[in-house]
């Protein structure tokens, strides 16, 4: 599918706010997503990602600001907005009383789609989700990864151009995650706009063209994964472990090596352009860490820099 230079805006949020009593879950955030982009909301649990997703999905009323999905206000034109979307919720809410294939067909009926479309479409989607041989199985007999794939297949029944994914791979084993990523990547290649929340940095790096880092309901930074890493971190990171009680003490001795040092409870992070050189410098000072590891900077480091906390707590 050819990309045009001026892509229409799919989502436009301006000063979007959600309050529950005294608690502000989403605090005046603004962002725009053009068609075809993969847009991520990265942040720890409780950052306000899911609340934002529910407002975009037209199932939660905002407390302030404006929000337009395909130019429509989800509060006034909820059914019209939701008709455009495919939604993969954080928690699987498949219909346990229905069989696997019927879950797809019944869901499609909510969009008013006729059975002449839904029956063959369900078979295609089962194939896409690698669940063809489970078509007549009961939902409760599926593994966690299969349920997740069925939920994604279900969200595609109306052939949406915009897909909302809330923590799509949380709780899945690595292999199941890679299958899902492959499927999502194929959808992205097909021009589907993906909006996803995650607290996995690798997922954000794999799937997102651009993302916002969210913490406590606010946007801390915005950009592509590589640009964010360039802006907020060094090229490489040296991870050192001196033993639980000695990390803080060793930090003083390491001072001056690299551009920045972070002390975590279990390890020391030395941010440097050249990790190996930093490690050599540490050896020259007569320090001998129990373990050392040089790696590329990741979004985890960006988050740590921005908030002083880890993504997964």
């Amino acid at each position, binding site marked *: 599918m050819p990309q045009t230079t001026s892509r229409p805006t799919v989502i436009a949020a301006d000063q979007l706010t959600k309050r529950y009593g005294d608690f502000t879950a989403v605090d005046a955030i603004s962002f725009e997503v053009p068609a075809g982009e993969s847009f991520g909301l990265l942040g720890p649990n409780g950052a306000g990602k899911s609340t934002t997703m529910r407002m975009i999905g037209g199932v939660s009323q905002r407390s302030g600001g404006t929000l337009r999905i395909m130019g429509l206000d989800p509060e006034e034109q909820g059914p*019209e907005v939701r*008709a455009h979307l495919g939604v993969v919720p954080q*928690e699987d809410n498949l219909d346990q*009383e*229905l069989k696997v294939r019927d879950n797809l067909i*019944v869901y499609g009926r909510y969009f008013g789609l006729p059975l002449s*479309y839904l029956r063959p479409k369900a078979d295609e989607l089962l194939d896409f989700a690698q669940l063809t041989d489970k078509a007549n199985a009961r939902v409760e007999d599926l593994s966690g990864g299969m349920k997740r794939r069925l939920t994604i297949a279900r969200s595609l029944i109306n052939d949406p151009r915009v897909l909302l994914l809330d923590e799509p791979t949380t709780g899945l084993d690595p292999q199941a995650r890679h299958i899902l990523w492959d499927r999502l990547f194929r959808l992205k290649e097909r021009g589907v706009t993906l909006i996803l929340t995650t607290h996995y940095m690798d997922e954000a790096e794999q799937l997102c063209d651009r993302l916002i880092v969210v913490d406590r309901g606010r946007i801390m930074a915005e950009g592509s994964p590589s640009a964010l890493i360039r802006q907020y971190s060094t090229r490489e990171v040296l991870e050192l472990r001196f033993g639980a009680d000695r990390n803080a003490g060793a930090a003083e001795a390491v001072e001056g090596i690299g551009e920045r040092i972070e002390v975590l409870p279990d390890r020391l992070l030395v941010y440097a352009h050249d990790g190996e050189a930093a490690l050599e410098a540490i050896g020259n000072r007569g320090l001998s860490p129990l373990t050392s590891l040089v790696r590329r900077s990741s979004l985890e480091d960006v988050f740590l820099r921005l908030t002083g906390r880890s993504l997964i707590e």
Partner: protein
Amino acid sequence: MSSQQRDPATGERDEPPATVPVPSSSTGQRDGPAYLNSRLVPHPPATSAAKARRFGTWYLAEQHLRGMRGYLDIVIAYSVGNPLVYLFAMGIGLASLVDANSGGGAFGGVSYLQFIAPALLASAAMMTAAGEFSYAVMSGFKWWKTYYGPLATPLTPQQICQGHALAVTIRILAQSAVYLVIVLFFGAATSGWAWATIITASLAGVAFGLPLMAFSASITVEKGQFALVQRFIVMPLFLFSGTLFPLSTLPWFLQWIGWISPVWHATELGRVLSYGYAEPGWLSALHVLYLLALAGGGLVLARRVYARRLEG
């Protein structure tokens, strides 16, 4: 919700063909799953929204009825077994003692079987409603979260509420029809109007069930409330609604249970319809109005609770 609102889409007549032609060269070479090269094109989102706005309640009822198919054997066993048990035990067994000792005058000149049949019919509708509007509601919100799937589609929270209510109403109507056939088989209804007791009994079911639905939707932690409803609301309503004996034979301080009970109102209507029990026309009208008011009030309240809880 009139019958003309039925979705034409199920008839699949006015739908455009679901496939569009593609060049033959591209059909043979498939890269990856068929979904990615699909020729199946759905109608546009605006059509989805328009259809959902009109027929959403029916779509959701369809889902519930499909779900009930999963326990259809139990639904049928209940619908047939329940009347058989009660009619044999009370309409035949207990009746043989009652009729022998009452001299025939106690129940307005009809047999005990005829007297209790409309009451059993209405009570059965209430009992089914008690199950379908309590645990099933909790399951939709909390246990299986089945309400949250459709919530992400063009359907509205109000339609999710109404669709559930509609499906249960259909089940109660079907169950009452089966019940009436068995009542007729026992020779317990003589009037040509007996068929209408299907409607009055079902009305008792929704008049009791829809307020219960609103209550169930407001519960966030189920710690035995539904069992209490069964024991201290459903059972007293069954026993003290002029079901097994005329309400007037109860002491005055218990008669109010009958007056507020949907089962009593539907039972009295059922007696008028199934054997011509004589009561003033205004009283029959009052029964109907009371049942409609309970059902309507319950639905309004339930819609509100659903919207608040699902869109919070």
